């Protein structure tokens, strides 16, 4: 009985934590000042949040329902492989588009220095517009 209560408590904890982390991740994404900072929220907190939720699910289905938990593990695996790569590519994209960053950011990478790009912007060779 106690065992179950504790287990339920643990599951509940992971559930709430999962929700909380997920929320915080999205909150970070919503309220940071520049794109590069916003990137941190989802990359870490959200991944963590989903991880927690999946742990809750694993505990619930694995222990209480005694069903296999491999899907959750696979999902987690996928997430942990892909989340940092997504973040990396997004950052790379942001740098390529030379998104402006908060003034207080230190370091001025080549990627964001206009003169380093070399060529002048070339107009889009688009005759498609009317």
């Amino acid at each position: 009985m106690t065992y179950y209560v504790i287990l339920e408590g643990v599951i509940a904890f992971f559930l709430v934590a999962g929700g909380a982390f997920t929320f915080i991740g999205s909150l970070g994404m919503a309220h940071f000042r520049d794109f590069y900072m916003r990137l941190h929220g989802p990359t870490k907190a959200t991944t963590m949040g989903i991880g927690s939720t999946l742990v809750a699910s694993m505990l619930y289905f694995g222990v209480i329902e005694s069903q296999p938990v491999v899907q959750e593990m696979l999902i987690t695996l996928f997430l942990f492989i892909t989340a940092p790569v997504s973040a990396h590519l997004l950052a790379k994209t942001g740098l390529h588009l030379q998104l402006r960053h908060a003034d207080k950011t230190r370091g001025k990478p080549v990627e964001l220095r206009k003169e380093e790009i070399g060529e002048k912007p070339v107009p889009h060779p688009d005759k498609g517009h009317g």
Partner: protein
Amino acid sequence: MTLLWIPLLTLLGVLVPALTARRGRGFCTLATVTLPAMALLLTLSQVPALLDGELPRVALSWIPSLGLDLAFRMDGLSLMFATLILGIGLLIILYAHFYLSAGEPYGRFYAYLVLFMLSMLGIVMADNLLLLWIFWELTSLSSFLLIGYWSHWTDARKGARMAMTVTGAGGLALLAGFLLLGDMVGSFDLGVVLSSADVILADPRYPVMLVLVLLGAFTKSAQFPFHFWLPHAMAAPTPVSAYLHSATMVKAGIFLMARLHPALGDSELWGWLVTLTGMTTFLYGAWFALLKTDLKAILAFSTVSHLGLVTALLGIGSPMAILAALFHILNHATFKGALFMSAGIIDHETGARELGKLGGLRRAMPITALLTTITAASMAGVPLLNGFLSKEMFFTETLDTALLGGLGWLLPVLATLGGILSVAYSLRLVHGVFFKPAKEVPPKSPHEPPRLMRAPVELLATLCVAVGLFPAALATGILDLATRAVLREPLDFHLAIWHGVNLPLVMSLAALAAGITAYGLHSNIRHFARQFAPIDARLVFEGTIQSLVARTQTLTHRLENGSLQRYMSLLLGTALLLATLGLVELPELAGDKPTQPLDAMLVLGSALMIFAALGTAITHRYRLISLLMLSVVGLVVSLTFARFSAPDLALTQLSVEVVTMILLMLALFFLPQKTPQESSASRIIRDLVLAGTLGMVVASLNYAVLTREIDSIAGFFIANSVPGGGGHNVVNVILVDFRGFDTLGEITVLALAGLAIFKLLNRLRLFMPHSDGEGRVWSPDRYPMILTTVSQALLPLALLVAAFIFLRGHNMPGGGFIAGLVTAVALILVYMARGVEWTQNRLDFPYQPVAIGGVAVATLTGLGSWLFGRPFLTSAFGHFHIPLVGDIELATAMLFDLGVYLAVVGATLMILANLGKLTTPHRPTKEAPAVSRKETPAPPSEEAPLILDTEKSQRPSKEKA
């Protein structure tokens, strides 16, 4: 049966000239006349039967449901006309033998001529109204060919078209009239129609029907105001004019009126319409005949005039008038045929047919002069010639008729006036050509034509004189038979030259005298007529047609302005209208099924979807943003499917959504990044209203269905899925088994899409923008290393997942389709991460065979059931015990699903990879040259690997990479 041979021989006769044209003209002419001559003999062989009071008839059933039989009759009227048609036709062929010049394709000419002969025969012999109509229209067609015979000549082309348009239109009216007539009497059988006058006259539709039928008759017989095509038909070679426009075709209308007279003729309406039209035409034609200077034009207008005369007689409609009409038809055929041929001879020998250019020919062509004088005199109504007899009968009838009541005196006066004009133009014709001194030297030195060319004219002129002198002996027989056919009873009559001195004789003599005077005053008359602006019917007609065409073009362009937006709004508007009509019939939108409560997840989900959908629409000018919004919609749709118990749908929607997204982005690269602002506010409002209301209708329909209980066939599937289909996932069992046929069609569509897209990508010329919409050059990093590395880690994992999803599909959510998409997407990731070249080297299977192979596997699975004597796609499954391994279930449905898997992988890769290849040297070029025959855009070079604007858009990174 003999009767059938008359048209049949003529029909065969159409082929003869075409077959014998190579063997020389003489042979061809002889061969051509053979069959019609036989037909003529056959026709004449019917005379004894007719004299015995029989009605020879033959009928073969053709289209019973239409009441159209292949029925022919040979009564007196038919006999008279058939003899005319065949007899004069033979003379014309003979004449044409000499008339046509050496280089002309006479075989074709003869064929057309015989075809025309056939159609005329058909008209006069038809014993079924619809059959009559068929031949009627056939005369229009064959005369079109004949008039347009000298097709390089503008006048001929236009004349032919005008004739066909007018007579064709009349033919259509005639069809309508006949259909009405047939409807009234319940049969198209001529015998029935002719004996149902009382029914017909009593029918309220009689006036409409009569007008329609008369329209047909009047157009064909060139009655005012439809006469205008006839003079322009004179662009035809003279034999054609002589045949069609004097002896036969124009008589078809007359024939029709005579033929239907017993059924339709006994009404005031008939009398008024026909008589007045006839009289008008009579005078109108005569007047213009006097004014024209071209020989054939004079003859043409005189023909119009004489046709009017006959029409007027038919309108008067008394037995004697009918007799006179028929007699005049015969006489007109002889003298006008001869005159046309004479005109042709003159034209042929002098090269001119303008009165102004001709003159004094009596010395060079004395015999022709004599023949022409005789026949023209007959036309003028000079006593002792056949024309005089029938014209005098005409005068008699105008005096006797009760038509027009108190204005009855008008008819004889007008008739006399017409007679005067006839005399004047006949005189002018003869005098101007043969007796008046020539003003100019004609182009050719005139001389008599070949003996045989003149022979037909001589024959006809002889007939004019002979009948004129001995009418009783020569004409009574045939006229007796013909009138009996029209009046349906024998008519007691006596044709004689002399009836004593009576009013008609006075009218005739007066006409002669006044006619001569009128010719004397001829130049004054012409001077008077010049005050009226001449109306060239052809110009008017062509102008009308052209302005009609121009107007139709404007209309078409206004309606079909090439704007998809309009077409789409019309489609949606129609849908809106019709669906609304259904909806308003619902007594209550909400049904009686209780609704379910809301929860936060649903509300947020809906809000999300609505936001995203609105976002997609609002941001549509910023295409990538719009695309991201669309992606959100797709995601939420799949979550919705999951929420409402459709895991398979959720999986499918997800994978399709991602593939669609990739596809749209691949395409977006080559399209403008933004849509210009070009919709006006009113347009946007219109679209919003249209889309919004249709959206409301869809929502209402959705709600109406959702709130009503459904008694569906679904229970069967749930109950039979495991026992009948061997699978626990009912949706999958429906897809691969219960409704496997749908799925087979669906993968065929997918494979077809791959094939079609391959076609589209072939030799596609595209811009490859070397900068994005904002003018930034692209990042030089083509294959980011981290992505590359991760893609190779994900591939085996994804394939494993695909295998898993595939294998469990029959019992759990999944199946071939989703597995196929997962596989394809994983491979696309490799393409994205490593590029086409690298991937292509490792993924060297051709996609089309895989896609088609999938369809093949599915089809073969279906065909396999035939081996067991079961219908296509019957599934089988079983549990097999394999030692050590244990129980496994195998189902043919899995094989089918494998086909689906292969088709999806193949088709998706065919689409995405080929599209990706566009910008690489691997772009698909295997397709044969796609240069359409219509437009030949010069391809830059056959070998060029890229069809791009290479100088400008070659990006710097190309070399680096």
